[in-house]
């Protein structure tokens, strides 16, 4: 996980609730959602590093804490009366085709592109990015080389929280409402997408481009099944089959390659 982002779903809806109540603009909204995300991420980072608990356990625990508190405080209420500028979203290069269907670059895709570019720059073009990979590969070795593990963890989890916060805004814009229970249970889907893209669960490997491909694979598969006319009830079965086949084939070919290397 250290090499890549794992995103436990965060209680970022709180941010949006606040933001919408107080009528903030785009920038403030993003900043607020990001800040709440970062805060949640930092809590995780502290537990992971200082208590040396495995990050899976910490994120399951904090997932329960954040989610429980969120529902408890908000009472599970929806917010649908969003300000107009938020409901309209952002549309670039808008045009309509002959039959009147509008096309354009919307907020969701813009944020997605920005997020991927920032993540790519962070991981590939900065010193910190290399440190993250190093820590994922071997934490003890990274520590002895003088990398500050706590600082890297703070950055990784903080960034994760920030992106999750932004993602919550994007989701809210798409759904045109804020629902505390939406996205809950998506953690494993996200994990699947990232790992399909070649990231390792033990850390140290994985690329942003791979993650894009993983997400695209699942999205195209689900969309394609609907287009082909498969009943949407069978959607999940195909997704599961794809995941299982993909990881099996990858592992199998890895094993073959290792065996071939051993013989030579």
């Amino acid at each position, binding site marked *: 996980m250290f090499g890549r982002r794992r995103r436990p779903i965060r209680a970022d809806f709180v941010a949006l609730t606040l933001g919408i109540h107080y009528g903030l603009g785009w920038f403030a909204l993003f900043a607020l959602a990001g800040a709440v995300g970062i805060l949640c991420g930092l809590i995780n980072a502290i537990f992971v590093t200082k208590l040396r608990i495995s990050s899976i*356990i910490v994120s399951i625990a904090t997932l*329960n804490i954040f989610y429980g*508190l969120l529902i408890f405080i908000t009472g599970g209420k929806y917010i649908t009366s969003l300000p107009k500028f938020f409901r309209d979203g952002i549309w670039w290069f808008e045009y309509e085709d002959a039959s009147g269907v509008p096309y354009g670059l919307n907020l969701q895709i813009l944020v997605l592109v920005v997020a991927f570019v920032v993540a790519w720059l962070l991981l590939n073009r900065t010193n910190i990015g290399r440190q993250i990979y190093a820590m994922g590969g071997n934490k003890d070795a990274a520590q002895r080389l003088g990398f500050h593990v706590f600082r890297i963890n703070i950055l990784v989890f903080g960034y994760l929280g920030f992106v999750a916060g932004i993602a919550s805004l994007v989701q809210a814009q798409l759904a045109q409402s804020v629902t505390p229970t939406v996205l809950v249970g998506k953690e494993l889907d996200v994990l699947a997408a990232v790992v399909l893209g070649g990231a390792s669960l033990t850390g140290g490997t994985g690329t942003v481009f791979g993650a894009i491909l993983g997400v695209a694979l699942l999205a195209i598969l689900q969309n394609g099944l609907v287009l082909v006319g498969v009943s949407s009830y069978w959607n999940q079965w195909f997704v*599961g089959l794809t995941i299982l086949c993909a990881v099996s084939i990858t592992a199998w070919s890895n094993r073959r390659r290792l065996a071939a290397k051993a013989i030579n």
Partner: protein
Amino acid sequence: MSLVTGASRPVFLLLRFLRGGAVPMLSLVLLALVGVFWLLLGDRIVGVGALQSMAFQLPELGILSLAMMVTLLSGGLNLSIIATANLCALTMAWVLTTYVPGAHGLMWGGWQVIAVLARVAVASIVGLINGFVIAYLGVSPILATLGTMTMCKGLSIGITRGNVISGFPDPIVFLGNGTVAGVPVALLIFLALCVPIAVLLNKSPFGHKIYMIGSSEKATRYSGVDTRRVLLGVYVLSSLLAVVAALVMMARFNSANAAYGESYLLVTILAAVLGGVDPFGGFGKVGGLIMALILLQVISSAFNLLDFSPFLTVAIWGALIIVVTSLGVVLQNFGVSRRSV
């Protein structure tokens, strides 16, 4: 240890007691919690009624946690237990509701036995797929079981179209809602599972191999153990435990559905780790798990009686594991510094 004299001796003994593992630590926490709840709620929390209701609720999560624990001990993870349980429950529900109402006499019982066999078969298949992909193809357990989880759930949804199958014969319902001498049958089933699993883990060669694989799979393989076969066994065992959980769950609700008990998935990991199971494998006892389950159940029941939101309970469960694990870390550090003095 000349330092340990006078007033510090009880403190030292307490520390040593607490460092003895998960069970003493959890029992102390449990004692403290029961004390607090008793002050707040009086007899409502320690009365017969409260105990019985707790005993009804505990086994589902308990059996599922056992299924999770077995794989955790081997250094793996089984995310597909709930989905397997639901798929099995649906298989059995289908046989029960299709054939049993029309059958009489011997066949009435016969179809129920067939229903149980059918679900065992389904679970074994899922377990074999998991085990094969993990042990023989070398896929990481999280991923493999994530795949089978999605597949099983997809299959359940695809077949039932998300509907509920309900209405089972009395013997099945009795398993979930009946009592024997005031003790719920479900709890008896859970205890009847705990004992053989504990014996299997601690007294049999298979169990020792599981612990060894959890500590170091490579070292175990080089010691001449067929780790792949053991892992296959682990995942089949985990699936079979999920079957029993499915039986209890469908009996209690008198229905089966593709999405029952999904919120239990991560809680089972929580319970196992709280009970002292090392998430990286190799360490953990059934006793610790039972203690952890009782602890979680007491909190949930007491919060229910106190009229708190069930979501707050979930938050407290999450906080509890962090507190208990940090206590363990702090005590360990304290012990180290003490010894170095």
